[in-house]
């Protein structure tokens, strides 16, 4: 087991800078999730740690060893790919034992390790099958098994659940979480699905354009986002953003019929700001600002109402399970100060 330290890691593709200089420390045994929108460089960063992409500059340390220039097979990492990447001509047993065979381990030991991993993952009955004869979930289990048998210092997961259907994804997510608890090995996991990030991670690294926007535990990022990007990315449904200006010792929400908020006194007078509030933190109250809903989603336990703001932005409100509200109805919203955030509209930086 070992932690991972990235020191001034930089990755260029010719003239294109995919990852500007980046520093990150992932603790021993930690489950770290890289999250961000498509093209933010999270997979590139993971593949760089794996050694599948060359470093342009910087240093990658796993445990106490600088592995920056080592062959991928000699870094002590094992990776699970989105498309499983199982060898199609080998059966499950051969797939799982291939790395050990290359490492010239004795046959009896290979058989033993494969059998143990197969047992952990419920694959005992499928050992003689080829990948084409397995379901998506089974294939992903084989891919995980292939990683486990190598007893790596670090597991790398590159969007491993993206190809599975919703139900299976939830089940595999729980299995991965259990696996992490059982093995206690450092895991780095890439996803664009923030629900996966929130449920699995000990630590989330939010990336945008190759830069780290914020690092923290899931709840830290949820409760205390450093900027508008992180605030909008973490949480589902996403946070609502409204434009506002300072006036009368508080903020006036231009987007919500000029509703007056009693906070934001620290903002310079006349300065436009962006107010952020999560759908689940809005209160329904007869004295609140009116909002006409264009659609309502009934999910059984939860009800969401949607509206388009005058500025063109989308707005979502958790209707606290109310089933009597219909599209076209007007609801009155109260925005609690302690749950609201104020951002600089230009830099996206959080002001309050």
């Amino acid at each position, binding site marked *: 087991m070992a932690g991972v330290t990235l020191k001034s890691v930089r990755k260029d593709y010719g003239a294109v800078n995919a990852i500007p200089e980046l520093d990150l420390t992932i603790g021993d045994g930690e489950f770290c999730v890289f999250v961000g929108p498509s093209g933010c460089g999270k997979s590139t960063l993971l593949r760089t740690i794996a050694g*599948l992409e060359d470093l342009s500059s910087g240093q990658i340390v796993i445990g106490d060893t600088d592995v920056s220039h080592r062959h991928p*097979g000699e870094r002590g990492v094992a990776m699970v790919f989105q498309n499983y*990447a199982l*060898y199609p*001509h080998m059966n499950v047993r051969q797939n799982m034992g291939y790395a050990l065979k290359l490492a010239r381990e004795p046959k009896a030991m290979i058989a033993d390790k494969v059998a143990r991993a197969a047992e952990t993952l419920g694959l005992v009955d499928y050992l003689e099958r080829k990948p084409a004869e397995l379901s998506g979930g089974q294939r992903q289990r084989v891919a995980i098994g292939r990683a486990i048998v190598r007893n790596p210092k670090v597991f790398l997961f590159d969007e491993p659940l993206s190809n599975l259907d919703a139900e299976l994804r939830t089940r595999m997510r729980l299995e991965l979480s259990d696996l992490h608890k059982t093995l206690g090995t450092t895991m780095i996991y890439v996803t664009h699905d923030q629900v996966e990030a929130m449920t699995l991670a000990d630590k989330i690294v939010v990336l945008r354009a190759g830069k780290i926007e914020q690092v923290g535990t899931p709840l830290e990022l949820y409760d205390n986002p450093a900027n508008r990007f992180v605030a909008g990315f973490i949480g589902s449904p996403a946070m609502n953003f409204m434009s506002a200006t300072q006036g009368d010792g508080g903020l006036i929400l231009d987007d919500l019929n000029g509703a007056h908020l009693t906070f934001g006194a620290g903002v310079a007078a006349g300065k436009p700001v962006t107010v952020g509030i999560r759908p689940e933190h809005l209160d329904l109250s007869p004295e609140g600002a009116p909002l006409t809903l264009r659609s309502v989603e009934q999910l059984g336990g939860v009800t969401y109402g949607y509206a388009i703001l005058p500025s063109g932005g989308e707005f979502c409100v958790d209707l606290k399970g109310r089933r009597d509200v219909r599209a076209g109805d007007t609801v009155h919203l109260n925005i609690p100060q302690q749950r609201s955030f104020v951002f600089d509209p230009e830099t996206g930086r959080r002001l309050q």
Partner: protein
Amino acid sequence: MAHRTSYPLSARLWIYPLMGVFVLLAMLPFLYMVSLSLQSDAEMFSGQVVVIPETLQFTNYITIWEKAPFARFILNSFFVAGVIALLHVIFDPMIGYVFAKMEFPGKRFMFVALLSTLMIPFFVRLIPLYVMTAQWGLLNTYTGLILPFAMSAFGIFLMRQFILPIPDDLIAAARLDGAGEVRIFIDIVLPQLGPAIATVALLTFVFQFNEFIWPLVVVSSENMRPITTGLTLFNQEFFTQWNLTAVGGMLLFLPCFLLYLFAQRYFVQSAMLSGMK
């Protein structure tokens, strides 16, 4: 799944005879060669077209071995075509893999240059190739017969097309499992090229087994001849023994035919997989 259409009787009444005519037209020269190979000298020189010989002269199939060193010719043909096919099986996947999965400066130019050799007719290359072979002292040798055909742009192209769809992640996974480049090629890439390798081996063998011009140019001694040029022994100044030439033709045809029957499954599979049908 293949879709089978059942045609009504009225359609079948004209489709089958029409198809029959085309098949017959295509097979006519071959059928005539079979007929010729069983004709006596008298029938052959009678000046009339004999379709079915009066008595089937199976002795022609024995005479041919006595009149020329045919065993040697066959051996030469098998050896040269076999070695060339083997070289293709070894080199084409390697080069195809490099073009499909590796990045290096000048790759695009080299690939286009390679493909452009497909556009140049062999006859244009014949003279420079002959001069080079002569200068290297390879005339009238097996090496001289084999070397110019040891690799082909077609084989490399076919392999590249087959290797391109192999996911990069599969190769990355092998790399992470600790495999080096050679291991990845042998353990991961090669096992997936079965149909393509069978196709290249078959096409190369058949093509080289039937090669006529190059042996005609390079080989001067009788015992180095393959069957194709060996048959010219029956082409004499004043007459040609067409019946024996036809027997030689049958000997040339049979191995290729049997090989095709054996490898047909792979061949069709390969054509379908490579999108070249």
